[in-house]
């Protein structure tokens, strides 16, 4: 008997259809534009005011609009910005810079595949930066959440349910330990595949 361990013959992966590709391209162009608008808005507000105070309010509307769009892509980043910064004033400032820098780079790279070599190489630094930014933000928000009992439900109540947002955030932070390495190494593997492919094409030339 011939043996093929694990998965049988590698099936040819079907790429996204024309409609899906169009959607992805448009989606990423819109997201890049949106986050650029927000970044520009931030810079202008800062220049106008001369300080960081009230910076958040100047871009609140477009920020909320584009975050809802981002929900489609990366759930954890939306949860972070929406839930944490919306309610916790003290950490808004710190968050904005880590977060938007990473998002703009990320979305702009999604628009054109020829940027892939750059994208996959930049991520080496961006991923850890983004993750540390997220972790620091959650950590900074913890005392406030505990003090105010934000988003938390206590017993007794008629639904016989409780939720401790503070504990949930700690759990979320801990979950980064197994999740982040998996994501990171997945990207490394993707990078090898994608960049290896590019090298093959240039050889054929």
């Amino acid at each position, binding site marked *: 008997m011939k043996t093929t361990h*694990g998965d049988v013959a590698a099936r040819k992966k079907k790429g996204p259809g024309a409609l899906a590709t169009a959607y992805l391209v448009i989606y990423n162009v819109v997201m890049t534009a949106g986050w650029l608008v927000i970044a520009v808005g931030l810079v202008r507000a800062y220049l106008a005011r001369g300080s960081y105070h009230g910076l958040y309010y100047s871009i609140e509307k477009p920020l909320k609009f584009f975050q809802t769009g981002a929900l489609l892509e990366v759930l954890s980043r939306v949860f972070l910005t929406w839930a944490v910064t919306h309610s916790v004033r003290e950490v808004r400032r710190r968050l904005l810079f880590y977060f938007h820098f990473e998002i703009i780079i990320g979305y702009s790279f999604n628009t054109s595949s020829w940027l892939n070599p750059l994208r996959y190489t930049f991520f080496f630094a961006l991923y850890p930066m983004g993750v540390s930014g997220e972790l620091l933000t959650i950590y900074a928000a913890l005392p406030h959440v505990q003090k105010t009992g934000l988003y938390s439900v206590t*017993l007794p109540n008629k639904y016989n349910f409780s939720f401790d947002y503070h504990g949930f955030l700690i759990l979320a932070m801990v979950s980064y330990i197994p999740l982040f390495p998996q994501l990171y190494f997945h990207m490394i593997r993707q990078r090898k595949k994608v960049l290896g492919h590019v090298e093959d094409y240039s050889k054929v030339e």
Partner: protein
Amino acid sequence: MHHVHGVEPNATIGEIKSMFHKSHPQWYPTRQSIRLDAKGKSLKDEDVLQHLPVGTTATFYFRDLGAQISWVTVFLTEYMGPLVLYLMFYFRVPFIYAAKYDFTTSKHWVVHLACMCHSFHFVKRLLETLFVHRFSHGTMPLRNIFKNCTYYWGFAAWMAYYINHPLYTPPIYGEQQIRLALVLFLFCQIGNFSIHIALRNLRPPGSKTRKIPYPTKNPFTWIFLLVSCPNYTYELGAWLGFTLMTQCLPVAFFTLVGFIQMTVWAKGKHRSYLKEFRDYPPLRSPILPFIL
């Protein structure tokens, strides 16, 4: 390439698997998947060699399904957890609630009723696993036991924590609500059991035959007229009853998640029935009459 010699033409795939196992002790038969075509379907243990499109030598493709565990073992383990865990919360074993509540009992009679219902449900499942069900497959992949136990044990602990909590709030509509819930729960337990018995009787002992289930003399099986998998329908009903009885949001979540999973299973089963039987009754829906 591995070779197996001296195979009789009337040997079954099952027998070939045993022969292969002898020369490769790490691959016990339930872990072997054998097919004629690398991308084809797995051959059944009952298939006979000479009835397959092969010559004097046959080439098969082998796939290692990974470590296997018996269905019975998985079911017993995954059901034992909820039974034991719920009772631990019911008796308020230390380190769950505040120390002053250790080993106390709830003052609400619905909490005692809920414990009886929950325990009855899982004892029933355990007994059915041992004495009623006739499984098509002997084994499933080992990793399933971790997945399944996390689901059952996790949800059981989550529900039990609130129902048996010192600050538990009984149902808003009191006795009326609890009585209605209990009737629904018991009705569906009997219904679910009736379906399990009916399905068992379709299949002679030790066989894996598949037949269309039909209503029997038992009125609880008349639902077969409208539904392919009434065991799931009744199961949903029982958990709706338990949700109503306890008025507990985690129970509602558990019911919802279970419903989604059972709907997926029911649709798959319904599709298999339609594919296998030309004369399958057209009036039937997978899980909810006329709806789903």
